[in-house]
């Protein structure tokens, strides 16, 4: 459900075919999202999911300042199990943010709101 709603937002913000977006898609590496696109994405997430998204956390910003599996887990508690290990292995390849990270952030925020 969350993924499907996110795909609609990606389509509007990045003008892409939503069929090309999956949970394993990298937001910046694969979809070429720029800072201004992430801002627009955040505004739409706030509006459509009615959550006050923290852009820094949702987009895994300052990841290098919090590197180390324990620190990543502490700073980004919404990430799914084992994702911190994957991120550490993946850091050298470029921005690690995946669509699944956004899905997890939104679901985590919605659950916290209940």
């Amino acid at each position, binding site marked *: 459900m969350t993924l499907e709603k996110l795909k609609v937002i990606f389509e509007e913000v990045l003008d892409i075919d939503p069929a090309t977006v999956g949970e394993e898609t990298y937001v910046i590496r694969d979809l070429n999202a720029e800072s*201004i696109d992430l*801002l*627009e994405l955040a*505004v*739409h997430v*706030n*509006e459509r999911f009615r959550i006050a998204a923290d852009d820094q956390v949702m987009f895994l910003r300052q990841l290098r300042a919090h590197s180390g599996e324990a620190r990543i887990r502490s700073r980004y508690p919404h990430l799914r199990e084992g994702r911190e290990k994957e991120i550490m292995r993946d850091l050298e390849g470029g921005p690690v943010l995946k669509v699944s990270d956004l899905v997890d952030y939104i679901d985590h925020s919605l659950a916290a709101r209940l």
Partner: protein
Amino acid sequence: MLDGERRNNLCQREDLEMSLKYKGEKVLILGGSSDIGLAAAKELSGRGLKVFSSYYSNKAKIKAGPGKVKPVYLDLGDVRTFSGVKAESYDYLVDLAHTDRESLVSSAADGEIDDYFRTNVINRTILLKEISRKMLLRRSGRMVYVSSAALNLPSEGQGFYVSSKSAVEGIYRQLGLELVKKGITTVCLRYSFLDGGRGKRFLQKPYLPPLTPEEAAGQLAYFLSDGSRSINATSITIDQGVPSYKRKNRGRSQ
């Protein structure tokens, strides 16, 4: 050759009015109870826009003013009062709000300095963040910030005024730069010789008659319109070209 009657007809105001287009419908005027704010509300509502005017202490003035305007309470010094303004989303913003403080830099009390910059720079930036994010949802927005020609050549006692206006111009220009890709643009207008509000105190022998609030409102209507959007992330001085006069006479009137 035009005959006298034809020439007279051409010179009538309605013939000379520019046809301005506005894709959006809602405009927020910050500082709506000022002379220019009231004139801008009349001008813009007359052009079919739905006008929301912020007020701090002069709600009655807005209500009694010309044009159909919705007053919205806003104390720029207190972010808790921003909810009324934030409840709506706007297509256009005219920012006239600014608190008054004339003082030599070295003579101001510490608390006053803190209050002044918190109100005019920090809190305004927080408000602009909210307004611009809502504009992003529609990928459309135009903001006009009314600044001052004093930024080009400040007088003594204008240190806080000029430096805060300068900081706010920086924020507006940056918003225009960063958000233009998403259809949101900004422009700062540095006015002088304006016969309204605090400008009245500084009217010293302009070359042309001072600009009336109604004339300024007409200019604001243009700078807000869709046709002016390519004028983005910049500051324009509207001072009759008089800085040279001010420079020449510097100190004589003080």
